[in-house]
Each structure stands twice: as structure tokens, then as C-alpha cells.
């Protein structure tokens, strides 16, 4: 019985797995190729390129393992036989399978031009290139880090860099021959992201460590993870990231077409990522000062309390640099022409600032409600007030800087600004989010009040308990109230909805009818010439019976008021 259940569960898992594959195939199969042949090709590509990717990874690790075992055989006191056996098995299975699939793929690419443009092939190249790039970067950082800090030459890391570097180079050359940069833009942008994130983290770590050394020297307090080793680790990350970013972004991607993907990378990764990092750094600095002034800090001396300064300053510098650079990449703002890209930029940063400021506003209301409720008998200090004020000071200028620019353009170019899709998405996302927050918070608030009421505990302490959900409701309400006022003003100047315009006419008739209609309308006319006498039918069964005996190759069936007319058409 248990064996039967186990078999049944395995079959269910297999059915789910096959179902997922078929779903994916259905998604990627283009319209018009929904025939059995099209689906078959898609399934073939899915398995072919998936298996090829997996055996590529297996074979690469097998090569690395064997080379490492040979290279370190002279210095190893005890062999790890299972690791060697694993590497050998990876080689024995992986290399022949990969070679076979690679030759088969090569033949397909030559004989089927559509194969080069297929999602399967482009997906394989993208995953192989990005995967090998990440391996090269990871092992490079590990290798150089050990070399610079401890003077150790990590053989395994070095071998891995060579093997994965070779995999990356081979696939880069193949991609250059079989695709173009537009087809591989996703890969180029992913590589740019990997490089940018790595160099940003490296710069942050190195700057924080360097500033930490200065802080330690000035105040004799160990700030962040400082020291030469930390600076070296940061520098390694920065150099590896910079090389990858320069190759991918500066050389290969910056000058390519400004597609949606390209703009999404610049706006979301470069600009928004930089803004978030800078805001966190600035906010941490400001919070530290406010907490010192009005909070109840644990540390007894200012030098200990302000030990966060190096790290926070590093985040501010790195974030602001990324933000500034990618702003320049987007292009300068002109006072007259406003592109949709600039509009997205303004709404994106306005939204980020609004989110931070709303957090501060909600925290302020919580503090106010706590003051109305029961007085505390124990409190960790005014840090909550410091958090609220920090979020407001950081969020409001960011929000206002971009929202005031939006208001200016709305005043000078009302129709363009009000009718833009970006503005509508921004407003409706705001309404949706504030509505969701309000509903959930109201649920929690009512639950707490009813519970205290039923237990007979309704009192001043209830206010403390409902402070957070109530503050979220009030904040969501304030944000929605203001933006609804904006929305109402937009509607007053929005262009009137256009009346429907006739675009297409279908004519089924003789030549004279068709000629009259074509002359009498500017819409596109679809013509079907009637060839022979029409027939009438009362029911669908009669229609089907008539079609069975029909001799024309095309027939139009017109249904109206429960009756059917069959019109034979000219081929």
C-alpha cells in the first residue's frame, strides 16, 4: 500500500513537472505557431538548452576538480577520494554529453535561421554568460583577497578563474557570431548590473574602512571593520566590479538603443538604487545626531556613539555618485521639452521621497498617540522621535524637489502632463497602496478595540496598543486626500474622450455593392464577393447540414435574430 502511494506521488510530481514545462512552452510559443510542430520545437529547445546548461556547469566543475587534484597532489597529505571520483564522473558524463549537444546545436544554427533568434538559444547564451561571469567575479575576489591580505596563492580559485573565464570567452565569441547586441541586451544589462553592484559595494567597503582608520586615529575608537585588510578587500571588490562594469556598460551597452530594458536598468538600478543608498547614508548620519540630542543613547561618550559615521558617509558618497552619474546618462533636463523618461525619473524619485516622508509622518502620529495614552513606566528614550524627524527631514526634500518640478510642468504643459500614462500610473498606484494599508490597519485596529472591550480592558492603554495601526490609517488617509485633490484638478483639465472613429468595414456582396461602400467610406474595407445564391436556415443543425453539402471552399454564415443566412464566397 505504501509503495503504491509512493509511486502515485512520484507520478503526481512528474505530472506537475510536465505541466510546468508545457505551461512555459505555451507562454513562449509565438502566436501562429500553435500547431503541433511549433509546440514540438519549443519542447525540444527547452530540454536541449536546459540540459546543455546543466552539463556545462557539471563539466566545468569536473575540469576544475581534476586540475586542482593534480596541481595539489604533490602537497596533499591525504586524498579526498570522493571529491576526485565526483570530478572524474562529472568529466566522463558531462564532456561527451555537452560536446554532443553542442555539435547538434551548431548544426541547427547553420540549417535553421530561426534557431538563432529563438528564446531557447538566447536564453542559453544569457544564462551561460552571466553564470560564468559571476563565477569568474566570485573566484577573482576570493583569489585576490587572499593574495593581498594573507599572501596565499589559492590554487583552486585560480584554476576556477581560468576555467570559467574560458567558458565565458567561448560563449561571448559564439554570441558575437550568432546574435547582435540588441538580442543580447538582457545579458549586457545583467552584466552591467553585476559590475555596478560589485564596484559600489567595494567602493563603500574601502571608503568606510579608510574613514574608519582616520576615525580610530582621531578618537581611539574602533569604528567599522577598519584596517588595511578591510581596505584591501574593498579595493579588490571595486577593481573586479569596475573592470566588469567598464567592459559591459561603457564599452558595450551605454551606446545601444534606449529600449525599455535599458531605461529600466538606468532608472531602477542606477538612479533608484543610488538614491536609496544615499538616503540610507544621510538618514543614518542625521539620526545619529538627533538620537544624541534627544534620545537616550546607550554609549557614554560621543566618540563611541558616532562610530557609525565612516560607514554612513561611505554609503552617502557611493549612492550619490551612482545617482549623479546615471542622471547624466539619462541626459540633461531642458526647460521646454519634457520627455517621458524625465517624467518617469521625477515620479520615481518623488515616490521614493513620499514613502520615506510618510514613514516619518506615521511615526510622529504614533509618538503623539502614545503621549495621549498611558504614560510609560519604562522607555528606551526618544529614539523613536529621532527616527520620525530623520525620515521627514530626508524624505520631504527628496519628494518636494521632484514633485515641485512635476507641478511646474503641469502648470506650463497641463495637457501633456495630465494625460501622461506615467502620472496616471503614479496616482492610481498611490490610491491602491494607501487603500490597502488603510483596510489592513483598520482590521487590526477594530480587532484590538473589540478584544479590549470584551475583556473589559478598554482604557488609556488601548490607545498605546492601537497607536501603530491608527497612525498608518491617518497617514494613508492624508496621502490619499492630497493626491485625490490633485486627481480632481487633473480631471477638470483632462482632454475630452474622443468619440469612436470608424476604422473597419466588412462587406459581403456583389461587385456593385462593394464599389459603392468603398467609395463612400474612408475606413478600411474588407471585401468578400458573393458567388452564387444564398441559403437560409432556421437552426444551427440546418446550417451544419448545409455546410456538409457545400461545394464552395469559403462560406460566410451570418446569424441575426435567431435566423441564419449562408453566403457562398468567391475564392
Amino acid at each position, binding site marked *: 500500500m505504501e509503495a503504491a502511494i509512493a509511486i502515485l506521488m512520484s507520478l503526481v510530481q512528474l505530472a506537475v513537472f510536465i505541466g510546468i514545462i508545457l505551461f512555459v512552452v505555451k507562454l513562449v510559443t509565438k502566436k501562429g505557431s500553435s500547431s503541433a510542430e511549433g509546440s514540438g520545437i519549443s519542447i525540444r529547445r527547452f530540454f536541449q538548452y536546459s540540459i546543455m546548461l546543466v552539463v556545462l556547469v557539471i563539466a566545468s566543475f569536473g575540469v576544475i576538480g581534476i586540475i586542482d587534484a593534480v596541481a595539489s597532489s604533490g602537497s596533499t597529505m591525504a586524498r579526498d577520494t570522493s571529491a576526485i571520483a565526483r570530478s572524474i564522473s562529472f568529466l566522463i558524463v558531462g564532456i561527451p554529453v555537452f560536446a554532443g549537444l553542442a555539435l547538434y546545436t551548431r548544426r541547427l544554427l547553420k540549417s535553421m535561421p530561426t534557431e538563432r533568434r529563438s528564446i531557447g538559444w538566447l536564453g542559453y547564451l544569457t544564462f551561460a554568460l552571466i553564470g560564468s561571469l559571476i563565477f569568474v567575479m566570485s573566484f577573482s575576489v576570493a583569489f585576490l583577497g587572499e593574495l593581498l591580505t594573507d599572501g596565499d596563492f589559492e590554487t583552486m580559485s585560480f584554476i576556477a578563474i581560468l576555467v570559467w573565464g574560458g567558458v565565458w570567452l567561448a560563449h561571448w565569441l559564439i554570441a558575437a557570431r550568432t546574435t547582435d547586441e540588441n538580442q543580447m541586451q538582457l545579458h549586457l544589462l545583467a552584466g552591467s548590473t553585476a559590475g555596478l553592484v560589485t564596484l559600489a559595494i567595494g567602493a563603500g567597503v574601502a571608503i568606510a574602512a579608510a574613514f574608519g582608520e582616520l576615525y580610530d586615529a582621531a578618537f581611539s575608537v574602533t569604528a567599522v571593520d577598519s584596517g588595511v585588510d578591510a581596505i584591501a578587500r574593498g579595493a579588490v571588490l571595486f577593481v573586479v566590479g569596475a573592470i566588469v562594469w567598464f567592459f559591459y556598460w561603457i564599452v558595450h551597452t551605454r551606446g545601444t538603443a534606449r529600449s525599455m530594458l535599458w531605461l529600466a536598468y538606468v532608472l531602477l538600478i542606477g538612479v533608484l538604487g543610488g538614491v536609496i543608498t544615499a538616503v540610507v547614508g544621510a538618514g543614518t548620519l542625521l539620526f545619529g545626531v538627533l538620537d544624541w540630542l534627544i534620545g537616550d543613547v546607550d554609549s557614554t561618550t560621543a566618540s563611541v556613539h558616532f562610530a557609525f559615521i565612516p560607514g554612513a558617509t561611505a554609503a552617502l558618497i557611493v549612492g550619490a555618485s551612482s545617482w549623479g552619474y546615471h542622471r547624466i546618462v539619462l541626459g540633461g533636463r531642458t526647460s521646454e521639452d519634457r520627455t517621458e523618461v524625465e517624467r518617469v525619473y521625477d515620479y520615481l524619485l518623488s515616490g521614493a521621497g513620499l514613502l520615506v516622508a510618510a514613514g516619518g509622518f506615521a511615526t510622529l502620529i504614533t509618538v503623539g498617540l502614545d503621549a495621549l495614552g498611558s504614560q510609560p513606566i519604562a522607555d528606551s528614550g526618544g529614539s523613536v522621535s529621532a527616527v520620525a524627524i530623520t525620515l521627514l527631514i530626508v524624505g520631504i526634500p527628496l519628494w518636494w524637489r521632484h514633485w515641485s518640478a512635476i507641478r511646474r510642468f503641469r502648470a506650463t504643459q*497641463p495637457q501633456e502632463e495630465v494625460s501622461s500614462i506615467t502620472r496616471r500610473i503614479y496616482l492610481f498606484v498611490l490610491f491602491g497602496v494607501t487603500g490597502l494599508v488603510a483596510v489592513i490597519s483598520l482590521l487590526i485596529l477594530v480587532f484590538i478595540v473589540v478584544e479590549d472591550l470584551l475583556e473589559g480592558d478598554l482604557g488609556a492603554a488601548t490607545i498605546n496598543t492601537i497607536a501603530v495601526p491608527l497612525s498608518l490609517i491617518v497617514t494613508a488617509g492624508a496621502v490619499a486626500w*492630497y493626491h485625490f485633490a490633485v486627481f480632481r484638478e487633473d480631471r477638470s483639465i483632462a482632454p475630452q474622450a474622443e468619440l469612436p472613429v470608424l476604422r473597419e468595414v466588412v462587406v459581403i456582396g456583389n461587385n456593385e455593392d462593394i464599389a459603392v461602400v468603398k467609395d463612400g467610406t474612408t475606413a478600411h474595407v474588407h471585401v468578400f464577393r458573393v458567388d452564387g445564391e444564398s441559403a437560409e436556415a432556421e437552426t444551427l443543425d440546418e446550417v451544419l447540414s448545409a455546410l456538409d453539402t457545400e461545394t464552395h471552399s469559403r462560406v460566410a454564415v451570418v446569424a441575426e435574430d435567431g435566423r441564419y443566412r449562408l453566403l457562398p464566397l468567391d475564392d
Partner: protein
Amino acid sequence: MKMDRHSSIVLVVIASVAVVLIGVAIVVAIQPPQEFDPGTPEGTAQAYYQAILDGDEELAISYLDEDLTANCSAHELRYFTPDGGRVVIDKTEVDGDEASVDVVITETWGEGPFGGGSNTFDETLIMTRSNDAWKITRMPWPVEMFCHEGG
């Protein structure tokens, strides 16, 4: 534009409320908590929770009955204390040498303006008077997380 005045008025109202709240926040921040007589159940609760929030493990454990913490180490408390918090009294009931204090605890974790969150919950401290001092006789938060009655 004339219609823009409505949204501007709404913005001014919200900004005014925020300014008032900032003033309230600063006043609240610099006000110390109300001091209770240490010889009362409220004073004992206050001393215990303030010791927790201040990270003074030995002092916090000293307010518990010895039978509760006979086999527990005060130093373990450091792993269970929040980064910050706030405790308010809901009600107190005294019956001879027995007392119960209902409190609402808000613990916060994470440092800085962008880290962590908070959690609010109720608790009842059960105390017994012994030698003119009140001792907590039922395992309270957060000691209950690592110390069990009887060890």
C-alpha cells in the same frame, strides 16, 4: 491656476499637522517617565522593565523571586533583550501581599531610521510582598524565553 489652490490648501493643512506633531515628539522625547515609589508594585514593575531596556541583566533578575531563577544565568538575558522599547501600565490590582500589574509592552529592534520594526503585546506581572519588597513570582518577559521555572 485656481483649481490648484485646493490641493495646495490640503498640503498646507497636512504640513501644519506635521509641524505640530514634531513639537509633540520633541516634548515627549525629552520628558522622563513618571517615577513610581520603588516600594509599590508599579515601582517594582518600572524598575524591572527599565533594567531590561537598559541591558542591566543582574539588576533585572534581582526583581524576580529566587525560586524562579535558581538555575538560570542572568548573562543569558542579553540575547533576549530588545534593542529598545516602551512599557505602559494598564491597571494594577493589590490584594494584601499579592498584586498583579497589567502592562502593554512595545519592543523594538534594529537600529537607525531604516532598520527593524516593533511588536506590541500585553503582559501581567504577578508579585508577592516579602520583607517590604515586591518580588515577581511568575516568569515574565523576556526571562521566560530562556529560563523555565525549576530550572
